[in-house]
């Protein structure tokens, strides 16, 4: 009999031990404990008891659900912009912008608003989304002008990248040195906003026009940014970040030398046209009188037939921006054609077909009418 009672008591003790152990194991996941789930689009908190959900629903009816759930960038007291909603027995925080990668976030649930009697501190939930693999490093694929000899009063430079770049740091990533390796202090202007193409791949650097223009105060005080007949290098910093936040990874540089200043406008009349043969798809080739602005050459020239219709085809800028070729989509019918140039088209020193970069008052250049048309015949 004693043995029997002993067995019963031992069994009860054993079961209560197991029960206590199980209870301690599940302490963090009580049936009524809120559960967090986070995706890039939202943080949801669920697993509410009926009583808790009633409180949440009542707060939501008063449009006070924002008081319950906030999300922060870890270490920061300013909450993320976003909306809190109650959907399918869940409290949902939707950020204004999807959660970014590589940033530590902290969701904060004001539990004492849901169960005031609990006096429990806010429940915190940390989460992070790992960045996706970044792929190939961005390259600087070209610097224009291409020629290694440029006028001393060069006005701008284009940097062409293989992928979109990050704005806001360009002027700290470009430096010019002379052939002794000495830094040329700020030959360019830090114009804000930075001059990017819409796709973020091409950056336009403007040299200081106040120093290039004769008689302006910066020109008198500091002289032009570059001297004539001098060798320089432009160096692009490896730390310049692309749009993904990844640095270029390696330094790029290009050497160039300066010639005399160029104060002459380009003139279409001096261009040379090599006309193609009729009924062929030979290329039309145009040789300029001087290198022209690479950015504008992408769209500043077009070919019209005798009726004024634009000829379809594929253009290409030739070496050192000294020429332009055009391969038609269909064979050339014999006849008269016109090459039309945008009068804004500039040379490397900002002299355009329409006007010189600066004009000496009273000079004839100021009143010259731009000619932006060149006729040729296909036969």
């Amino acid at each position: 009999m004693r043995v029997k009672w002993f067995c019963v008591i031992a069994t009860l003790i054993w079961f209560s031990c197991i029960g206590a152990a199980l209870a301690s194991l599940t302490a963090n996941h009580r049936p009524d404990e809120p559960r967090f789930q986070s995706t890039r689009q939202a943080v949801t908190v669920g697993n509410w008891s009926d009583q808790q959900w009633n409180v949440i629903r009542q707060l939501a009816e008063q449009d006070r659900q924002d008081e319950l759930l906030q999300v922060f960038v870890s270490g920061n007291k300013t909450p993320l912009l976003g909306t809190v909603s109650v959907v399918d027995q869940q409290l949902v925080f939707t950020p204004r912008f999807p959660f970014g990668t590589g940033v530590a976030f902290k969701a904060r649930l004001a539990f004492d608003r849901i169960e005031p009697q609990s006096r429990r501190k806010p429940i915190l939930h940390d989460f992070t989304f790992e960045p996706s693999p970044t792929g190939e490093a961005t390259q600087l694929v070209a610097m224009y002008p291409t020629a290694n000899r440029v006028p001393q009063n060069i006005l701008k430079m284009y940097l062409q990248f293989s992928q979109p770049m990050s704005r806001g740091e360009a002027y700290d990533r470009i430096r010019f040195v002379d052939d002794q390796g000495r830094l040329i202090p700020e030959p360019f202007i830090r114009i804000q906003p930075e001059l990017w193409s819409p796709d973020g791949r091409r950056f336009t650097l403007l040299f200081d026009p106040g120093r290039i223009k004769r008689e302006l105060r910066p020109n008198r005080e500091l002289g032009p940014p570059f001297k004539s007949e001098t060798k320089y290098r432009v160096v692009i910093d490896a730390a310049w970040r692309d749009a993904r936040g990844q640095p270029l990874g390696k330094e790029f540089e290009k050497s160039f030398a300066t010639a005399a200043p160029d104060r002459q406008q380009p003139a279409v009349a001096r261009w040379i046209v090599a006309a193609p043969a009729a009924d062929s798809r030979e290329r039309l080739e145009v040789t300029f009188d001087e290198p022209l602005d690479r950015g504008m050459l992408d769209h500043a020239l077009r070919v019209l037939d005798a009726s004024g219709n634009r000829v379809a085809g594929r253009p290409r800028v030739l070496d050192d921006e000294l020429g332009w070729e055009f391969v038609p989509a269909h064979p050339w019918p014999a006849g008269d054609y016109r090459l039309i140039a945008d009068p804004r088209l500039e040379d490397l020193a900002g002299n355009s077909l329409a006007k010189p970069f600066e004009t000496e008052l009273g000079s004839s250049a100021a009143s010259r009418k731009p000619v932006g048309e060149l006729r040729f015949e296909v036969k």
Partner: protein
Amino acid sequence: MQRGSIVATLVALLIGLSSAQSMAQEHLEILQRGSVALQFAGPMTFGPDGVLFVGDPMAAKIYALDTGDRTSGNYGEDFAVEMINDKIAAALGTKADEILINDMAVNPISGTPYLSVARGRGPDGQAVILKVAADGTISELELKNIPHAAAQIPNAPDENQTDRRGRPQRMLAITDISLIDNQVVVAGLSNEEFSSNLRSIRYPFTDAPEGTALEVYHGAHGRYETNSPVRTFTTITLDDEPYIVAAYTCTPLVRFPLSDIAKSEKIRGTTVAELGNRNQPLDMFVYEKDGENFILMANSSRGMMKISTEGIDRPDGITSHIRGGGKAGQTYDTIDELNTVVQLDRLNDSHAMVIMKSGESGLDLRVVPLP
């Protein structure tokens, strides 16, 4: 300059006539409620009645947005939000080096500063307009269902100006906008050709907004004539005639009559000052202090200038060299305690709202007295 009925409306509002309320409503009723998808939130300026003008250079458009913010606020001299860049980044769920604050405009009615911000520094960055309450709380100007109007910027790059892969490359970077009388005036520069176009669009915008692009030349000591992009500008009244005072990227400060803005041609401004090398003007406005008018101008590297307007109306401007590196034309004082200001707008007759650098990479938003 054409002065339509809306000018009368605005004047009536300004001088507080009893009929102003109904006229204001009429002016606002022109704005249509709907969603505005900004591609880029660039320079901004406030018009009357809490209407915010925003330049979107990617879309080559100016938007007029009714903020509905028409009650006076409480931004005192002690208003300061330190490390506003960190706080904005946190509100947008990102790091401080992933946001750009493009511009700040203060609503003259409420004093609320509005910030145009890019979340993400690449071309896919998201555009957002934030406002900062007097208690420092940051919230968003909701653009999903906002009364608004839009106008295309005249003579802006068109989508045919692409590279050989068909990608548009040319863009007009907007540097400043302002509502002057019934014209939204836009300063900007192309990422290709070098030019000086001030564009203006009549407001309220019509279905086919009229616009002009004005080329402003300036002289260099009577010998050369040239032009370059305008970085920032303001208006001043001289002998009862309104003038624009424009600060150029190549440093001259140039004056020309506002009536010239309606001309779609080349005009010549008068150089009234040259403000020094290795510097870019950032923001400017005219204010009155002790019975005199001054121009307050924030600069990229030469600090905050308080520029005297005495003699700014002289007919010839600067015509000769100032030897020995002296200041040419209008004189100015540099306000040392404001030398790190990067964004500037008028708050009221006695104070300005500024964003200024703080430490290595911080930016503080604060109210400062006008010097």
